[in-house]
């Protein structure tokens, strides 16, 4: 019977393919998370700028 640690390290070894499997999942995760963060940051910034516009406050220059 494999110990718990053996089973965990077997899982991470992915049958010898760890060097390919984990980077694949990692890259997918990183790209998708960065996309979400970038989307939300841009959205918040544009919402702020619209709110400033409506209130008549002076605009800070910057990319739209």
């Amino acid at each position, binding site marked *: 019977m494999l110990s718990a640690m053996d089973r965990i390290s077997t*899982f991470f070894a*992915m*049958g*010898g*393919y760890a060097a*390919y*499997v984990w*980077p*694949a*999942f990692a*890259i*997918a995760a990183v*790209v*998708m998370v960065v*996309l*979400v963060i970038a*989307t*939300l940051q*841009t*959205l918040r910034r*544009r*919402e702020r*700028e*619209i709110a400033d*516009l409506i209130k008549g406050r002076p605009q800070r220059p910057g990319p*739209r």
Partner: protein
Amino acid sequence: MRMAAAVLPWSTAATILLIATGLVWGLFFSPPDYQQGESVRIIYVHVPSAWMALFIYSCMAAASASALIWRHPLGDLVARAASPIGACFTFIALVTGSLWGKPMWGTWWVWDARLTSMLILFFLYLGHMALLNAFDDANRGNRAAAILAIVGFINVPIIKFSVDWWNTLHQPESVFRLGGPSIDPSILWPLLIMGLGFTFFFVTLLLLRVRSEFLAARLRVAAAGR
């Protein structure tokens, strides 16, 4: 816009639930392949990403057509919003494909019909994004990008049937084919769940990005008026 706001929390929840379920099922409870061993698990990110790359481009082309032909204002917003998401998924499909190809085929890349046409799809996305921002007048950018999106759509069926029409190293269709999927249910089910999860991820991000593009358009109008 209000409908979008109402759908958003449900779409977000569906995204998280489906991707979490798909990942746990795929990584922990699905079997290794008798030939590919544990490396087959890359399928759970590679294939759904590729599906999304094609699906999103199709949405983008449809949105572009509605903007160009019927002058529907939402069309340009959807095309602007969708493009970067599609580019990301195409990138993920290409990279995870290479990571799968190296141990299985012995190579990171091969210029076969499937891989080459997917690389072209990636360049089409990048070109689309570049055109959107290439002009001082955003409307000209919208129109140029829309034309590219529509003309480039021919690449989508080419990609789909590439493994059929040409002799490719990439394997033939195993899900969307006449006669039904040829993948064992123990792998097919988590794969479909990941596909659905990625689709809801796209829907969620699209709703946010369309709102964002709508605001950007309003800001451009306001800036032009001053």
